[in-house]
């Protein structure tokens, strides 16, 4: 066989070599991993719990859906007040002092929660529905104070709401046209029409689920399902998978910060965690240049185990006059 280059000859000088079949090792490793992967795939399959639709939400928890939609109209939902990149709000903008990178790129999605989640779909549904058209007209023509009064009263009433034949029933009160709007939105949602409208957003081809996911995320129904599958952040959900399957266990460190002070109660926890992980990742990448970190392998003699044959050999030959 041809000799290695002089660089490696020099580097390994004095260290004996042995036959080594790289391709054989790769092929054997490939076969071994194939056996493990195929056995696991056949025996355990893979997790797949069907996605939640707004239609299912409307059927299973109509009060939650109506409460969420009312908060979208009132501008009090998580998404409505979020801020960049979804809206012009500021409730979810995280900062460390003046450092607020979330604000730098601005409002990229241009979400109008009331219009996109409620009024727009109702406007479509109002075609051929004079009662809804009238209620919609009454709502949009009212001044802000009047609308907020209706919404506030209706939100309070929803706290004691019940369902009857899938419809939401609240105590009598001064809610203006809001109950009619919500009854129709619920009907559209139950038919599956709200899923279609939020996904398509007026386009034929659709791959962007920003609006339906934000809408469902504002409610409690999807979060309840996530909690039952131990997916919440407080349940180390980032590294979990539905059922008993392993998830992204490699995100354990990222998930851990959310469980401990000061991150667990910080209003800017996401920014703190991301920056912490960025710092740790840079430290990992530059370990070769960081004193102490690069010295730990010398102090903790795992290498003595890994290269035990070498060190035994070295000890034997170090006593020789030529060694």
């Amino acid at each position: 066989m041809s000799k290695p280059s002089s660089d490696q000859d020099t580097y390994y000088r004095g260290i004996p070599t042995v036959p080594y079949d790289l391709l054989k090792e790769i092929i054997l490793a490939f076969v071994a991993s194939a056996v493990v992967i195929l056995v696991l795939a056949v025996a355990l399959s893979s997790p797949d719990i069907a996605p939640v639709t707004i239609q299912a939400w409307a059927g299973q928890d109509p009060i939650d859906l109506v409460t969420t939609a009312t908060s979208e109209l009132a501008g009090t939902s998580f998404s409505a007040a979020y801020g960049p990149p979804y809206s012009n709000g500021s409730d979810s903008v995280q900062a460390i002092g003046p450092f607020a990178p979330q604000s730098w790129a601005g409002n990229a999605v241009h979400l109008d929660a009331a219009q996109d989640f409620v009024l727009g779909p109702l406007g479509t549904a109002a075609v051929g529905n004079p009662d809804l058209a009238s209620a919609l007209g009454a709502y949009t023509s009212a001044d802000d104070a009047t609308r907020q009064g209706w919404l506030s009263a209706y939100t309070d009433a929803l706290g004691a709401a019940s369902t009857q034949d899938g419809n939401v029933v609240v105590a009598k009160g001064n809610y203006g046209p809001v109950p009619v709007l919500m009854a129709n939105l619920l009907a559209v949602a139950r038919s599956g029409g709200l899923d279609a409208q939020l996904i398509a957003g007026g386009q034929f081809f659709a791959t962007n689920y920003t609006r339906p996911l934000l809408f469902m995320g504002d409610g409690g129904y999807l979060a309840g399902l996530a909690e039952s599958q131990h997916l919440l952040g407080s349940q180390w959900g980032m590294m979990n998978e539905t059922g008993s399957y392993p998830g992204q266990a490699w995100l354990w460190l990222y998930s851990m910060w959310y469980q401990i002070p000061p991150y667990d109660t910080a209003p800017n926890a996401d920014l703190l965690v991301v920056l912490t992980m960025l710092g740790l990742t840079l430290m990992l990448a530059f370990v070769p240049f960081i004193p102490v970190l690069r010295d730990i392998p010398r102090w903790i003699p795992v290498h003595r185990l890994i290269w035990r044959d070498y060190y035994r050999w070295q000890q034997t030959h170090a006593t020789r006059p030529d060694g």
Partner: protein
Amino acid sequence: MSMTTKDAAPDPTDRTWTGAVRRLLERRLPLNHILPSRQPFFVGSWVYVFGVVAITGLIWVIGSGIVLAFFGPGWWHVSAVGRFVNSVHFWAVQVLFIFVVLHLWGQYFMASWRDGRATTWVVGVVVFVVALVTGFTGYISQQNLDAQWIAISAKDGINATGAGAFFNVLDFGQMYGIHVMLLPILVTTLVVVHVLQVRMRGVVRPIDATPSGGGTKPPGDAAT
């Protein structure tokens, strides 16, 4: 036939860029470095197998991923064969990450960045980070409950950095395209670079190695 240093002797009349690159590759990456059939005897440790198994895991991930991408993101939810291919993809990812982490810890405790190998370490960490992002976009692309919730809960961390304006985890089309096209190309390219770096410089010597001068028979080797 392997290319020797003598074969690659520079032709003084060849001043082309192509010739310069060829000579560089012949000098730094001769075939007997890429496909060695002898190695220092200390390579006979299971730690050296972790990286190889991680690469075979990556091969299974990419192979099953190609089939899933060909039939589209909804296929595996409605097809028994698709479910099996997805399961192969799922478990191959687990195998890949287990062995990538083992490889990383093994190389850390071997201080494998020594003797001019720091960039090999840095590229390896970059591979790990890009693989994390690839796995993350894959979980978002599953089109099931898990994908919905991961997207909803992950958006805040990404938005907090400002990246949410151009990396929208709620946009399935964007995440899927990045997952099946851009990131696999990036991971594969970086892995090839990483492996070539290892082959170019050779594996690092044991910590505190004191070479004895050569010619000594290693334990269990009849060929030397």
